[in-house]
């Protein structure tokens, strides 16, 4: 209803991007967007929502989760055991049925995100060869605007362009790939390491200056060159980095070196919790937190943004584009293991995992995540994530809000964990508590800015009318787990946990220009080394319910 006019009246608004922090005001919505209040007093809204006493925020944005594509779907297929004993999602007259477990089915994913007041989500690791698959799943994932990052950190063409010092070829390839796959951003996962994993038993790189077999480039070169290329292409979210050495004791130096390798270019380091460990390699007894050291670097370098990858205690599924990591974890936990090596070069590792609060390592991982939220001074550069489902489900976000806003609760949970965590992390000494405004930043305004989404994460005129209304409560987990109302593009989709409607949402992607002459070189490469035809690779917009090109910066 393009001509309908909705008024959300008298809510307490948190809109940090526009400097609004807890002021009572009205919001006006028409045509799926926030509009200016009518100047003509005769104009009456077609619907009024009384939001007095309620907290109003933009819809939440999850900038790093795994919700679509081959990796996620294999995890669904591989883990029937956790679905049978979990909550069921029954069919209603407006919604499909579904299953939960750590990897919910597509419809269930959309409904559950919406139920938390989240209206946008980005899948963080799509193999280029499976871009079409990810779009098909997106088209069955309602209530959310969606996009994905494309795995490029082990791509042969990328590495060859760097090896041969051909930055124009690198630019062309990244632009061609993002445009053809309808992706949103370049993603580097264990750059170089996944290629080595494919070439020899237990293979990996272990530092930024290790040489990748055959291509003779280093992770440092891959990170620096892709970041620079993304800068030249003016991508809204230049490069999303899963560092080398994830999960390994002592990996914090690799993380620090990765930050330095960006050489001042914009870069986002993801699930940084998994990359902030001190201690000797393989020696659990020396495992400790190095957040303080790394946060200091982040605090003084504005080109760097992070999301946390918070660990929560309980059972989940580890899934990663980091093939050697999947092998490592499957050996640690001894459970079933999926590994998938894919041409257009990416990897995949999946294994069930259980985080226990009595485990020193797991407890430290939990504490390290919280340390990150509490030690990065600028909330605009740290984003809430669990790396769903790796650290835990996105359904844990309300609990994380409570950890951040309630230091007593945080300390109470810390007391239930392994006692040595207090000596090995600074969590016990951190008494910072987040404000509602800061929560609004790390869950919506901040990720929107980091992603370059000008119409999201705020409630100014012209913004997408993705709005969440919460009932204030002393217990912030209670407040955030059951929004009073959720609007997607101006439509009321959830009311106090009940789905009202389930629109499909948009697909957000970029369409950078590239050199058509240099594309011929990509085509030649593609047809020499890959098993599908070049012409059959690009994904057409027909796969998307409602495509939206996010412009370059």
């Amino acid at each position, binding site marked *: 209803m393009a001509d309908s006019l909705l008024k959300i009246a008298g809510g307490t608004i948190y809109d940090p991007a526009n400097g609004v922090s807890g002021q009572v005001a009205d919001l006006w919505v028409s045509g799926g967007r926030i509009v200016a209040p009518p100047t003509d007093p005769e104009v009456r809204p077609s619907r009024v929502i009384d939001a007095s006493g309620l907290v109003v925020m933009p819809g939440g944005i999850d900038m790093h989760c795994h919700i679509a594509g*081959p990796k996620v779907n*294999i995890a669904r297929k591989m883990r029937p055991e956790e679905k049978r004993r979990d909550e069921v999602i029954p069919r209603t*007259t407006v919604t499909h049925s579904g299953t939960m477990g750590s990897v919910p*089915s597509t419809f269930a994913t959309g409904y559950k995100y919406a139920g938390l007041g989240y209206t946008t989500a980005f899948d963080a690791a799509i193999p280029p060869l499976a871009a079409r698959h990810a779009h*098909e799943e997106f088209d069955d994932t309602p209530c959310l605007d969606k996009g994905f990052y494309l795995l490029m950190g082990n791509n042969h063409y990328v590495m060859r362009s760097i090896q041969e010092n051909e930055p124009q070829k690198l630019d062309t390839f990244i632009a061609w790939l993002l445009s053809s796959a309808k992706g949103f951003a370049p993603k580097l996962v264990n750059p170089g390491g996944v290629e080595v994993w494919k*070439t*020899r038993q237990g293979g990996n790189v272990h530092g930024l200056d290790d040489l990748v077999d055959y291509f003779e480039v280093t992770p440092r070169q891959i990170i620096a060159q892709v970041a620079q290329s993304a800068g030249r292409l003016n991508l809204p979210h230049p490069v999303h980095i899963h560092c080398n050495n994830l999960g390994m004791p002592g990996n914090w130096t690799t993380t620090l070196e990765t930050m330095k390798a960006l050489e001042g270019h914009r870069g986002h380091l993801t699930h940084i919790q998994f990359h902030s460990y001190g201690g000797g390699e393989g020696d659990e007894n020396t495992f400790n937190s190095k957040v303080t050291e790394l946060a200091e670097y982040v605090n003084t370098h504005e080109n760097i943004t992070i999301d946390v990858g918070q660990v929560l205690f309980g059972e989940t599924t580890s899934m990663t584009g980091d093939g050697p990591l999947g092998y490592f974890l499957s050996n640690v936990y001894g459970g079933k293991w999926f590994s*998938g090596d*894919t041409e257009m070069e990416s990897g995949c590792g999946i294994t069930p995992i259980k985080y226990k609060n009595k485990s020193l390592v797991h407890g430290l991982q939990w504490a390290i995540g919280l340390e990150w939220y509490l030690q990065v001074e600028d909330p605009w550069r740290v984003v809430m994530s669990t790396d769903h489902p790796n650290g835990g489900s996105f359904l844990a976000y309300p609990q994380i809000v409570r950890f951040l806003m309630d230091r007593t609760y945080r300390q109470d949970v810390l007391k239930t964990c392994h006692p040595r965590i207090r000596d090995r992390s600074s969590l016990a000494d951190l008494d910072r508590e987040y404000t509602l405004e800061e929560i609004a930043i790390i869950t919506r305004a901040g990720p929107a800015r980091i992603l370059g989404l000008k119409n999201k994460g705020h409630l100014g005129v012209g913004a997408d009318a993705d709005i969440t209304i919460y009932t204030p409560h002393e217990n912030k987990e209670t407040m955030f787990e059951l929004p009073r109302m959720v609007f997607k593009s101006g439509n009321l989709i959830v009311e106090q946990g009940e789905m009202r409607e389930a629109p499909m949402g948009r697909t957000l992607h970029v369409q950078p220009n590239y050199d058509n002459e240099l594309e011929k070189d990509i085509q030649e490469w593609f047809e020499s080394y890959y098993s599908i035809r070049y012409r*059959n690779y690009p994904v057409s917009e027909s796969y998307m319910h409602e495509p939206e090109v996010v412009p370059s910066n």
Partner: protein
Amino acid sequence: MASATTPPETGELKIVKDATCTFCGCVCDDIDLSVQDNQIVKAQRACVLGKAWFLNHDIEDRPSCLIEGQPATLEEGYDRAAQILTGGRYPIIYGLSDSPCEAQRVAVGIADWIDGTIDTTTSVCHGPSGMAVQGVGEVTCTLGEVMNRGDLIMFWGSNPAESHPRHFTRYSLMPKGMFTPNGRKDRTCVIVDVRKTKSAKAADHFIQIKPRRDFEALWTLRALVNGVELEADEVGRQTGVELAVWQDLAERMKSCRFGVVFFGMGLTMTRGKHCNTEALLALTRDLNAHTRFVAKPNRGHGNVTGADNVVAWRTGYSFGVNHARGYPRFNPGEYTTSDVLARGEADSAMMIACDPMANFSEPARAHLRKIPYVALDAKETPTTRSAAVAFTVATYGINTGGTVYRLDDVPIPLRPAFPSPHPSDQEVLTQIERRVRAIKGIRGQ
């Protein structure tokens, strides 16, 4: 009566480049079709099966819809189909492996709205492989990785020379890849089977095991790879092959650079079923302590892999899914179609691009004959002949577009050659779904 009007003949020759063949799981997408007057006259690069698929394709000269064997309008057919599917207490929807994903998605949606069971032909081919993955996982790769890296290529209980004729030349044995610049010369091929198939002559080493002893053979290899000593007589007696042969193979597997074992229904549908596949997947996993080694099922139907994916992303399980309680439950044997029918449980059905009347057990066929069901197929089959409502649909990949998944889960688009006067299965299913939703009062998408 549904009109099936063939487009006029113009004599014009049209070339469709990079068309996709959906005959088998290889889903070759490099076929150049020459099309003249709604007939494919040439299918360049297609194999013997692909040529038969493309060149023998005619528009069926029969009504698009038959109700109880009598010609009817499509509208009448859609109405009646929706009544059948919503009128029963135990509806079951089956098939899907020769439909594009776009149609499969609608079919799963219908099953959800009618609290029905959705199952695919996976349950009678590689269902046990899916169950094995649930047990131990899977170490695998795409066919391009095989082409670029694979130096030991094995086939177990699979006969691609007859079932996937371009497998050797396009993907697994002959092609030159980045780390296999000399193609076949850089690879060793080992084939294990219970009989000397046509594929055997492609092998450097052919190992013929006793029938029904795949599990024992795989477990022998697992033991050897893990350094367990075995009694030679016992191994020979159990597997029909001397221990020394297995020792040689185990060493080859451990010492190759990137090993690949493709497996087929010789493994999944013989004694041991999912235990056989589990043994093979566990062996593959073990080998990764020595080198890189992967396994891959050689899936048969053109889009059976897509069916697994679509059913899994929508319900959480890849086949044998029951919605009777209003949400998905999975139990092979309980909710798989051949079993449900053989026990006489379903009271209505929809068969999509499959032919259970030709290949299910007699008790299952006898029960299916008794219940009202809807059938969609491009050709007349025993299943369409006994259907209450039979739709003649356009053929995917020849007359209609869409998406199919190759046997290694790689999604590939279709390039139709010429239009059909018959509706696509997606169109038929969408129309039925619309009516089902109206009957059930569904407002959702």
